[in-house]
């Protein structure tokens, strides 16, 4: 089978999975809410909310399964970026019924996932004798729990009112928890993640682990500041710290700044965070990336120098650190989607989509969920490609970037955005400013830097005269001194 057929089949499978899971979430949520509506007097009625469906499907299935698949995607995608085939040796030949059929199929490396899981779970979790037993065992849990808890407040779909009878309807939620303080909760929980890593570094009784833990602690604490500051612009623009709900950041991005209709189809510029706050997005992305401790900010791990805070961990305890890193990737992508990329809203055709699927709210929710996860998937890809493209920062460069670049830029961004919002509360001038910023970066990206221009000019001059030999191709070392 040709590669592009396989690739398109794989992409279709992933998108279909997201669509199906979103449909399942809204379907189960609708069932639960209706059960509650019809048994309002029962004692368990308050428990049967659609938040349960969100916890079940969003947090336990979508986020966790995506993170699990990412353990493979990290290796497979990086292989493709580096011109390698990547992991393709594990086989499912041992299975009872389908084993004969799957014996010689690499299945894009997917059998490596169960192989890794079995390996992690059955390996000994070795603990050094001098390590502190309680803290040593606590650290992987503390590294995983806050990251996972973070996914609770991210709205991955709208709250939809589903009706089944005249005047009878229930509100089905697309988020596990919708507190009024969504963004503040996010900051609070994200800063707890530092405990897991620094405890792991401290409790291992290992110099290198301690170095990694100290690095992690100082890096994460310094980037906290820039992280908080970078979102202030968005908070001012929408005058809220809510993430979910009708007046939350995610839902409000569905409105247009400028819009017009073409044959019943609405087009326009939506007030997505990326248009309003491109600088804020860059700052938040950089700071949050540093919080995830992935390359190019992986000095706490530092594979090539100190191995890092989890050097003494093995088995599933190490697996917890690894899986929490991938959950962090998924959650960060979901946060970015919800805050900067218009959450579940399509870039155009909001009204058209809503009216096309009126009366089929569960399917509408599934389409919204699919749109959300397509955006999140692209951002996940962006995070992986960044890891495999950029060189690592040195430790002092990490601190330099955090304190001397991101922090002042964040402050400037807050003041400029605040002034623009004060001047024009309709956010249109803020959007124009953002588009201008993006245009400047686009222009810089598409035009060559000065050194390349000068070299091209020099080459054009050089070609005019025949010097007899090519000093560019074979520069003679030290020649010309005699």
């Amino acid at each position: 089978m040709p590669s592009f057929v396989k690739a398109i089949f794989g992409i279709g499978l992933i998108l279909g999975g997201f669509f199906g899971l979103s449909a399942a979430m809204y379907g189960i949520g609708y069932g639960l809410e209706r059960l509650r509506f019809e048994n309002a007097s029962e004692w368990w009625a308050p428990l049967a909310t659609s938040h349960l469906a969100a916890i079940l499907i969003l947090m336990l299935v979508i986020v966790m399964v995506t993170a699990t698949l990412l353990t493979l995607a990290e290796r497979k995608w990086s292989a493709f970026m580096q011109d390698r085939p990547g992991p393709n040796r594990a086989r499912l030949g041992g299975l009872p019924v389908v084993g004969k059929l799957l014996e010689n199929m690499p299945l894009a490396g997917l059998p490596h996932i169960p192989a890794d899981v079995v390996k992690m779970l059955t390996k000994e979790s070795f603990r050094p004798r001098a390590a502190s037993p309680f803290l040593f065992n606590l650290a992987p849990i503390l590294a995983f729990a806050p990251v996972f808890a973070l996914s609770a407040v991210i709205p991955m779909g709208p709250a939809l009112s589903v009706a089944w009878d005249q005047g009878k309807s229930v509100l089905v939620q697309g988020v596990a928890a919708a507190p009024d303080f969504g963004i503040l909760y996010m900051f609070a929980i994200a800063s707890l993640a530092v405990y897991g890593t620094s405890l792991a570094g401290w409790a291992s009784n290992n110099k290198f682990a301690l170095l990694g833990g100290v690095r992690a602690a100082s890096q994460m604490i310094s980037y906290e500041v820039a992280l908080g500051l970078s979102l202030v612009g968005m908070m001012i623009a929408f005058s809220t710290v809510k993430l979910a709900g009708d007046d939350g950041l995610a839902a409000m991005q569905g409105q247009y700044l400028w819009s017009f209709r073409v044959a019943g189809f609405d087009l326009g510029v939506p007030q997505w965070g990326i248009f309003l706050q491109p600088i804020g997005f860059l700052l938040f992305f950089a700071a949050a990336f540093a919080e995830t401790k992935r390359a190019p900010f992986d000095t706490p791990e530092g594979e090539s120098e100190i191995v890092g805070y989890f050097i003494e961990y093995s088995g599933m305890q190490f697996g917890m650190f690894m899986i929490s890193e991938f959950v962090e990737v998924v959650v960060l992508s979901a946060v970015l989607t919800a805050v900067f990329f218009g959450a579940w809203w399509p870039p155009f055709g909001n009204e058209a989509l809503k009216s096309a699927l009126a009366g089929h709210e569960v399917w509408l929710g599934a389409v919204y969920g699919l749109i959300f996860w397509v955006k999140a998937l692209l951002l996940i890809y962006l995070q992986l490609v960044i890891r495999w493209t950029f060189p690592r920062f040195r430790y002092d460069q990490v601190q330099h970037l955090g304190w001397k670049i991101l922090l002042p830029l964040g402050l400037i961004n807050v003041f400029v955005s605040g002034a623009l919002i004060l001047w024009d509360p309709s956010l249109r001038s803020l959007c124009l400013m953002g588009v201008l910023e993006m245009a400047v970066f686009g222009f810089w990206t598409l035009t060559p830097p000065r050194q390349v221009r000068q070299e091209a000019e020099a080459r054009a001059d050089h070609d005019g005269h025949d010097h007899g030999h090519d000093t560019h191709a074979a520069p003679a070392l030290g020649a010309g001194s005699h």
Partner: protein
Amino acid sequence: MSALTHGHAHEVEKKELVEPDIRERTYIPTLLKGIAITTRHFLRNLFFDRDTNPQVVDRHGKNTMNTVQYPEEKIPYPPGYRGVHRLVPREDGKPRCVACYMCATICPAQCIYIEAAEYDPADDAAESRVIEKFPKQFVIDQLRCIVCGLCVDACPKDAIRMDTGRHTDSGYSRQSFVYDIPKLLGGDPVTHPSDPWFKRGNSTPPDWVEKEAHTRIGAAVEFPKLPASTIEIDTSKPVAVTHFKKG
């Protein structure tokens, strides 16, 4: 100073350090270009088929992978590669070996053990009239062998060769690496015009021309041609010479 370098003294153009552009100082434009390069590789390798030609330099197509997936794809060895030994058979399937002990004697690792036996002179068979000995046992300990190929050079009868193009097979016991005649004897049979069994009075000479061609060393294995070198050497100009200052 030699006349060569004196006449064409090379002037090294020093590349001046250019002040970093705003594009480089803001990181983002150059980083975006880096992402574009990585993504291009990713998409090409995701959507296009990998060329499985074991000669990596001959691969073409949109896919840029240059991996050779070893057990399924193998890079052919160059001609003259010394693989695992074989005892060369005659046309009738018996080994050409006459148990002269030359290989066992020259072997620096002493990994060849030969036990000779004598043909019965009273026997009427053709070879017993012209050859005295044959190997009753011919054993090579592949774990001892250093793959130097001296046995092949020493053999006066072209009876041992290393042209199989295979490695020694892996095994679970030391004994499985001790190869005896049934394991060693194999491959294309070889006949030479000087072979003694042709020297009987009543024999007709065989068709040498046809036989000789495939009996030369390396002729049994088909080796693909290596690509021609793409490096162009300009001989019209003097070669750049590196001078080191004394003292």
